[in-house]
């Protein structure tokens, strides 16, 4: 009788131990899945915010380049007195634009490529290069025009 009781007790304890191990295994698998998806999600978020930040930085650089061109770099100037000159911002001509050194601008802003052109006020045609563009409204040779600055 005692032997039978011992056998029942032994079987129950073995069963309980096995159930615990199975639960643990399931939990480990689930936790691993959660960890995997969690880490993947975090990596995705990181990549996404990194790309977004890089795009914003590029946009700001092009914005700065366009602002410089419209206010100083490519505008008409006139010498008034010795050493002092009047700057006519937003007023561009072919001659004033010819003074712009694109390569210097590109190097200063650490851009791979810079593209500057003029379009009619009605709008610009699509540009082939994959880049971010900024349009500024200016007076080119006295007419309302758009100065387009693109970069990547």
């Amino acid at each position: 009788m005692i032997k039978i009781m011992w056998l029942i007790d032994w079987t129950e304890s073995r069963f309980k131990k096995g159930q615990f191990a199975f639960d643990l295994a399931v939990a480990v698998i689930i936790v691993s899945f959660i960890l995997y998806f969690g880490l993947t999600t975090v990596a995705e978020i990181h990549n996404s915010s990194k790309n977004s930040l890089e795009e914003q930085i590029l946009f700001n650089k092009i914005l700065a380049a366009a602002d410089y061109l419209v206010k100083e770099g490519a505008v008409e100037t006139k010498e008034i007195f010795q050493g002092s000159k009047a700057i006519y911002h937003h007023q561009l001509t072919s001659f004033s634009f010819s003074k712009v050194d694109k390569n210097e601008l590109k190097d200063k802003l650490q851009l791979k490529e810079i593209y500057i052109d003029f379009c009619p006020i009605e709008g610009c045609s699509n540009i082939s290069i994959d880049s971010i563009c900024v349009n500024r409204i200016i007076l080119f040779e006295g007419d309302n025009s758009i100065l387009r600055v693109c970069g990547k």
Partner: protein
Amino acid sequence: MKRGLMSFESVFSLAILIIFISSLSILKPNYLDTSLYEYQLLNDILEITEKNSGIERLSNGDITVILEMQEIAQKQGYCLDITLELIDRTIPNMEDEFIIINQTLYIELTFPSLCEERVNKVSTTRTIPAYLGEIIVLEAKMWKQ
């Protein structure tokens, strides 16, 4: 055993919730902050209007200047609301000389754009002296179409 199961479930639910919320932030599109660019564009419109003798035309009552400004903004994909305040503090005296007196002529004109209004707007105000004693206060609001 039951208590352990409960804590496992709560941790599991929390993890699922965190993953769900994180996924939502991935789905959110990344917008470029273009507010500075929009502000510059608005100032460009005002600037070229001033340089194209727009103020003289406005002083002479030619409001087509406003329509031209709105058209330029529209071509760039924006809507433009203009409010003009014309303040004239000069009245000629008997000797046809212009003197500034305390009387003020004040006219406010609003030229709303025909677009649907949006929340994100950029605005600027310019106070421009026109003729003797005449001041034009131009308030412009611009937003994406």
